[in-house]
């Protein structure tokens, strides 16, 4: 792994938020799913959205990136109001998105999948760097995207947004359905990305995993933020969290 990738960069504690979500409402067709979600993510922070199935975590991510049918409220990225923007312009603010189910394109090869998202900001990883990060992808560059294993697909989904120069990453359940060893590898990658200065908003069901990467946990229930727990306090709040999550 290149040295540059590993260089430590401290997070300024009181920096202005990179992503700010305020009173966000969202709909799927006629059904009102988000009822005023609000939280901030500071530059260099890793924040997870925790919550039960159907609480509105994925919807929150979709609302931020702008692919939800109808949304209202405020989403600012680097101080720019994005609520009325089409998603392609939100992406151009430097936001990278890894959707639920990874969104690998079956009709594209691995290499094509990897190079598909256009550069939105300067300073993205090169293809070489990505292949160094995920060597499996290089080996299978010519095969159909969806022929990869689940773990490889997840690496592909993360790898392809690292190329774009986006510094704010929205990851939707990157560990879902993966073997523990792969989950561990994803965890290492995320920690590495954090040290690289990436800001990450993560949707997770698995708070044990979230604990290994996140700075803060935002708990969502029925389309609202009901609690925010710093990672350091997680163990202390374990009982409360288990109630939230129903585990």
């Amino acid at each position: 792994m290149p040295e540059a990738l590993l260089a430590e960069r401290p997070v300024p504690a009181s920096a202005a938020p990179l992503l700010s979500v305020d009173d966000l409402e969202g709909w799927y067709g006629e059904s009102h799913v988000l009822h005023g979600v609000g939280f901030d993510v500071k530059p260099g922070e890793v924040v997870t959205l925790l919550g039960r199935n159907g609480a509105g975590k994925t919807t929150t991510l979709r609302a931020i990136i702008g692919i939800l049918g109808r949304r209202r409220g405020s989403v600012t990225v680097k101080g720019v109001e994005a609520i009325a923007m089409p998603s392609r312009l939100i992406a151009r603010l430097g936001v990278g998105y890894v959707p639920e189910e990874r969104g690998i394109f079956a009709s594209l090869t691995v290499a094509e999948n990897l190079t598909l998202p256009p550069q939105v900001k300067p300073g993205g990883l090169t293809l070489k760097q990505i292949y160094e990060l995920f060597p499996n992808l290089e080996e299978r560059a010519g095969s159909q995207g969806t022929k990869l294993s689940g773990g490889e697909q997840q690496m592909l989904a993360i790898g392809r947004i690292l190329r774009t120069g986006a510094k704010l990453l929205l990851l939707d359940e990157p560990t879902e359905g993966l073997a523990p060893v792969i989950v561990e590898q994803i965890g290492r990658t995320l920690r590495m990305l954090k040290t690289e200065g990436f800001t990450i908003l993560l949707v997770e069901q698995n708070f044990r995993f979230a604990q290994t990467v996140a700075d803060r946990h935002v708990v969502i229930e029925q389309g609202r933020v009901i609690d925010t727990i710093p990672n350091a306090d997680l163990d202390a709040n374990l009982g409360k969290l288990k109630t939230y999550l129903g585990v």
Partner: protein
Amino acid sequence: MVDIASGSAAPARIPATGGASRDAAALHRAIFIGLAALLVVAPFALYPVFLMKVMCFALFAVAFNLLLGYGGLLSFGHAAYFGMASYAAAYAAKVWGFTPELAILLGTFVGGLLGLVFGALAIRRQGIYFSMITLALAQMAFFFCLQAPFTGGEDGIQGVPRGKLFGLIDLSDDRALYVFVAIVFLGALALVYRIIHSPFGQALKAIRDNEPRAISLGYRASQYKLAVFVLSASLAGLAGATKAFVFQLATLTDVHWSMSGEVVLMTLVGGMGTIFGPLVGALVTVTMQNYLAQFGAWVTIIQGVVFVVCVLLFRQGVVGLIAKFIRKPL
């Protein structure tokens, strides 16, 4: 889409509550009576043959709408049932000397039978594939009509005798025929209304809105679909057979795919999934064809513009729009 809160979404399409539907039923009864009254007065203001044509096409559109609006099945081949029934009735009346009511019954039966065969094949597929199968089968029916000697090719079956209803009432008088067509039309409309509001109709709507769920509730979706298909084809046949008596002819136009397109237009203009929409749609379309005929080559252009405008601005159709406005199903 694990994350979608599904709780609040689903019940949106459940039929209105008791009070509202009683309200709507009263309104519908009033419209029926109004319609019947209108049909009594109309021939004094408008040309009866034109009105009969409107009724035949309205019935055709109602039949089509039963399938599309309530069954959720878009057929691109409804001309087949309409046209074949028209041929059957015309042939029976002209060559075998059937009385009008028997010839029309035969036509209806032919439409239904064809619908049974085509429907059984088509309902095995969904969405656009369903539509394409109906189109393909209708093209074959067209080919059959073109080849079969009894249809008279492009000349059609001409000079069909209007005959005597039940061997008693002479239909060659436009007024007598008008009354007969009006009764057939209102009767069929009432029948369709009953079907839509019967448990069968409710089941259909459930299947239309969410087939997997309806199946999980124990409905045999494919049987319902086939049944509504056959009903729709039979009614289309009734319309086609009646038309053969109004114009005393049956021609290839009635089985051609553009006729299948026309009925889609009528339903769309009027408002699909509404009971009275197809009537308005048929009225508008037939009026355009008849009265724009003087504009010569502009007919198709104006029709095209109506299509485009409807799709862009009035997707619910004229009646759908009114229904939305008065907040009652029509």
